[in-house]
């Protein structure tokens, strides 16, 4: 295979697979909705993993960046809703605009990431936690104060141009970025920072620069996830991007294994579907009355259970379920293509 093509082959394969999937199940609204929610959470988890897992910093304000992306993309889409690109069929023009707003959302979030990251990443890691948390609060206050963003009611009427294909292509992209970065020597520098910041600095790694860059990329994808979110959820308001949302993503990353991309994906899918599955289960088994109240209990105890889960994981298995390994590292050795170690 020509070297120039190596970078593109997975993209082409992904496009083909997702297109088939879109045709097969794209018309079941409930499935599409659920898959979209799952997809957005996966994008969030994988992108947060670049900072919290690979670089060893700790951000707990991912929802804030998601909000920036959602509001930027959503507002932009509302503004250009009545425009079409001449010479293109309506659907294509809509999709082009959709992609454009996603990029805008991602870039806005990335800029915020830079502004927030630069002062705090110069300092020790735990400051980032507090500053990102504060950033989420500031975003909330800004949105609530500006009519432009619909204040507390939120933005509604954003064209629902997202699709199964779009969401999962973003999942694919963020995964590809995470894997390719890890695979490159630059990614190894991130890992070096996580392992030993002083030594990395002494070996010529501009640690602040790398940390900020990882944070910016992570914020970018959080913004893209927000943009996607705005295009399939009928209304976005500050309540969807709270501290609780950030913690959910943190739990996904920590449970999946700090540093394991596939671990983050598995955890994100599992933790998003689990409450849904439990609800269904209780309703099927318990009938309407007891089942509903049980299902309600499940939702109530979800948050404290997340908290306990974090504590227990840190005490028993601080590296998370997968550690830094990827799924294929856990496959039996005799399977072809089984690789070991950090690759």
């Amino acid at each position: 295979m020509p070297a120039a093509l190596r970078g593109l082959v997975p993209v082409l394969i992904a496009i083909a697979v997702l297109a088939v999937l879109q045709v097969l199940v794209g018309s079941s609204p409930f499935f599409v909705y659920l898959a979209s929610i799952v997809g957005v959470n996966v994008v969030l988890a994988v992108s947060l993993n670049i900072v919290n897992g690979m670089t060893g910093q700790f951000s707990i304000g991912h929802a804030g960046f998601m909000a920036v992306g959602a509001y930027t993309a959503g507002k932009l889409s509302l503004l250009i809703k009545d425009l079409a690109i001449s010479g293109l069929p309506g659907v294509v023009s809509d999709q082009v605009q959709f992609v454009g707003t996603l990029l805008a959302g991602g870039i806005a979030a990335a800029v915020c990431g830079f502004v927030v990251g630069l002062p705090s990443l110069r300092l020790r890691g735990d400051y980032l936690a507090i500053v990102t948390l504060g950033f989420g609060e500031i975003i909330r206050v800004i949105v609530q104060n500006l009519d432009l963003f619909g204040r507390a009611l939120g933005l509604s009427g954003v064209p629902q141009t997202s699709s199964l294909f779009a969401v999962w292509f973003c999942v694919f992209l963020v995964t590809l970025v995470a894997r390719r970065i890890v695979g490159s020597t630059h990614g190894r520098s991130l890992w070096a920072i996580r392992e030993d910041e002083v030594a990395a600095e002494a070996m010529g790694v501009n640690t602040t620069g790398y940390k900020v860059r990882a944070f910016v990329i992570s914020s970018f994808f959080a913004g893209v996830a927000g943009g996607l979110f705005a295009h399939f959820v009928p209304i976005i308001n500050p309540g969807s991007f709270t501290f609780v949302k950030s913690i959910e993503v943190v739990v996904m990353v920590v449970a999946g294994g700090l540093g394991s991309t596939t671990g983050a994906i598995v955890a994100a899918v599992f933790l998003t579907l689990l409450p849904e599955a439990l609800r269904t289960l209780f309703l099927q088994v318990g009938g309407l009355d007891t089942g509903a109240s049980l299902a309600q209990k499940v939702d109530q105890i979800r948050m404290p259970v997340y908290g306990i889960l974090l504590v227990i994981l840190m005490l028993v298995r601080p590296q998370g379920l997968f550690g830094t390994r990827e799924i294929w590292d856990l496959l039996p050795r005799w399977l072809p293509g089984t690789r070991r170690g950090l690759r």
Partner: protein
Amino acid sequence: MISDFAQHLINGVAAGTIYALVALGYTMVYGVLKLINFAHGDVMMVGTFLGYGVAQRLGPERQSTLWGVLLVFLAAMLGCAVLGFLIERFAYRPLRDKPRLTALITAIGISFTLSYGFQLDFGPLPGAAPRAFPEIIIPAEWLVIGDRAVVIWNWQVISLAIAIALMLMLQGLVYRTRFGRAMRAVSFDHRTAALMGIPVDRIIALTFMLGSALAAGAGILYAIKDTAIQPLMGLYVGLKAFVAAVIGGIGNVPGAVVGGLLLGLVEEFVVGYSSSSWRDAVAFGFLILVLLVRPGGLFGRVAAEKV
């Protein structure tokens, strides 16, 4: 107008005192462990609920006697000291030699467990709805200026007195006692301290208990001031107090007090003379500014990493 200014000043000091007391706990724990004890605000919340429970038990007559008030404070502070001890013993101590991130995640987990666990409504847990805190200090006017232009209430004076007493006790403890000296030694370098025969584990546990007890005291004062308590209150107060600690220079005891008062006053005057809708952004905007300009806080300095 001068009377408004005076009233804002009173409000700001009252809020700042609470921030300062909670910030002290953050700063002490950070001093000995270099850990941001994220759950600190939630320990405070648990303290107020303990006080609430005791006051309810005492009933309306007994809770407002001197002994009743003392009992509420003591029960809350003791209860939180035990909680602080348990958290330290079972959640933080096993992780002391692990990367600091691990302990931070644990702290966030504990914070989450406490604040959302208390929102459940089975068993003894209080549920999400706010509750009115009993008036353990029956409000009475202590000082009235002009035609009720400025009113200072008895509980405001008592709260301030209690807060100052607690801070002075802490200052004495840290700088005048053997325990305080040991604490400062541990804060300096806990490995060296251990080599010198200081019981590091016990000192750290005691520091945690002390910080948690202070938080409980602050929590009761907070509940007296704002009259309503609810499980999520710890998150907000905790965050603001943390910001106060960083502004003052984290790890620095007088810094925490100054930072707390400063934050309380800044918030108050932003609302009073600018716009109340930006109030919650003030603290964090302030924080980012401090980190940009003076990362070590007003009184602290950035410690170089040991190589």
